[in-house]
């Protein structure tokens, strides 16, 4: 079974980004870029499936400009077998990403696609669901546990009230939640090996997908600033302030 994992290049989660002063966009000058954390979890899950003999090949796919090669190499160092970059300088929105991934899946004969549940830059939480709908594959989002056996996927999902378990027929799209696994670190030898693994490049035109954005960002601005309040000296003072000043208890 071929498994596809989608790895997105995003601003590292430790960076506190700021809007540019003219509101035209987010200031991405010299900020550290990484693999979206949820995608790292997706890669780990796919690699474990191959280690267990469930998956035969793990293909890491990233979509965006040339620099996304870095994130594909990271996925290869973590154990993916080969990479595909869908290269474009155009802004990619979730619907376009889902259409491109669907085209790659059809080309490669993929049985299982594992995506992150959410990209931490756009906070969209859409792409996996869109891919599943477009490809007619079953869907297991926000997964914290995944088992594959007898042509079925059993997935435990993080939902508002707790945990839900579904049985999915394959092919399926899974999106990873934080508790699905703890990703390994890439070892130096594996980082070296990753440089020799195959990495192909495709374009949206070759895949026959129109990626024109559907949503325009008119401006970006900082959120309303929250001012630090005061330090209280004791629990007694805290309770007094909450009762008599803030009047919330």
């Amino acid at each position, binding site marked *: 079974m071929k498994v596809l994992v989608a790895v997105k290049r995003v601003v590292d989660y430790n960076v506190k980004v700021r809007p540019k002063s003219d509101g035209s966009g987010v200031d991405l000058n010299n900020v550290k870029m990484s693999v979206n954390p949820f995608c790292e979890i997706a890669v780990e899950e796919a690699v474990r499936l191959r280690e267990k003999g469930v998956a035969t090949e793990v293909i890491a796919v990233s979509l965006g400009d040339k620099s996304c090669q870095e994130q594909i190499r990271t996925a290869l160092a973590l154990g993916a077998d080969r990479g595909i970059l869908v290269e474009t300088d155009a802004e990619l929105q979730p619907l376009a990403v889902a259409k491109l991934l669907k085209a790659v899946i059809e080309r490669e004969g993929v049985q299982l696609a594992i995506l992150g549940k959410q990209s931490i830059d756009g906070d969209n939480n*859409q*792409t996996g669901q869109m891919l599943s709908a477009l490809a007619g594959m079953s869907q297991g989002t926000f997964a914290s546990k995944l088992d594959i056996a007898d042509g079925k996927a059993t997935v435990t999902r993080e939902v508002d009230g707790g945990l839900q378990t579904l049985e999915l027929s394959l092919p399926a799209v899974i999106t990873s939640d934080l508790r699905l696994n703890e990703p390994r670190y890439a070892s130096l030898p594996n980082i070296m090996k990753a440089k020799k693994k195959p990495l192909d490049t495709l374009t949206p035109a070759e895949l026959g997908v129109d990626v024109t954005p559907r949503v325009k960002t008119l401006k970006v601005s900082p959120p309303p600033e929250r001012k630090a*309040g005061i330090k209280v000296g004791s629990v007694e003072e805290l309770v007094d302030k909450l009762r008599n000043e803030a009047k919330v208890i």
Partner: protein
Amino acid sequence: MTTLVIAEHSNTELKPATLHAVTAAQQIGSEVHVLVAGAGCAEAAAAASRIAGVSKVLVADNAAYATQLAENMSALIAEVATAYDAVLAAATAGAKNVMPRVAALLDVAQISEITAVISADTFERPIYAGNVIATVQSTDARKVITVRATGFDAASAEGGSATIEALSSAHDAGLSRFIEERVAKSDRPELTAARVVVSGGRGMQNGDNFKLLEAVADKLNAAVGASRAAVDAGFVPNDYQVGQTGKIVAPDLYIAVGISGAIQHLAGMKDSKVIVAINKDPDAPIFQVADYGLVADLFQAVPELSSSL
């Protein structure tokens, strides 16, 4: 312009999140309809018909929608949506699972977790864990939108008298099967609806110590929440997580105990009216957003707090 709101419900009860989505829908279009899809959901539909400002309730009562399977729900909603200019749902785990599929089936974008309506096609939404607010304009003829409940007041649950119309269409994709749901029963208010939230982090050290927070919560009729670190460590279940990738809350009072205040946590609670932080590290970033900060060992301060309430 008519907008359709997808109800969040348990067949017998309408979830409060729906009321916030109705308010957002009213700001987009003049007329608001609600779709209730479930199995044996007449009570939820009746509740939806009483929401002030709703003129029609569509009810799809069919076994195919009993557990809100994404494949089935999205096929239904996409079919119904073609009669509307905009389809909205509160950004619950359920809607996040279903609505992007609806958008894809309609070949339109989804606008996720809007916090303000600027006009019928222009919205505000937080990105980068709430560090940036984007104003975005949809160029699609039909809008698919999820609504962050904390951005909109709740519509009044009573006062409306919408007509109720049954839908007969049943979509059963047969791709997935519901096995079970493990939902912890609790007498406490729901995290996203509570007036007071008491949350614990890694500083709590173990799950047992959350009893200290429960004692405070009992006195304040509060919900209990947690940081990711506390959930990952197994102190409390996943549905306690507050933050960028957990639940978004904005109670009147949020008490953060043994939580450092990482941006991903702040993203889920910094719109609370009053924030209290209890942390032994005076430099913890949580103090930068706290109205009242107490630098103290939580194992001393929290028992003292519950006994003085």
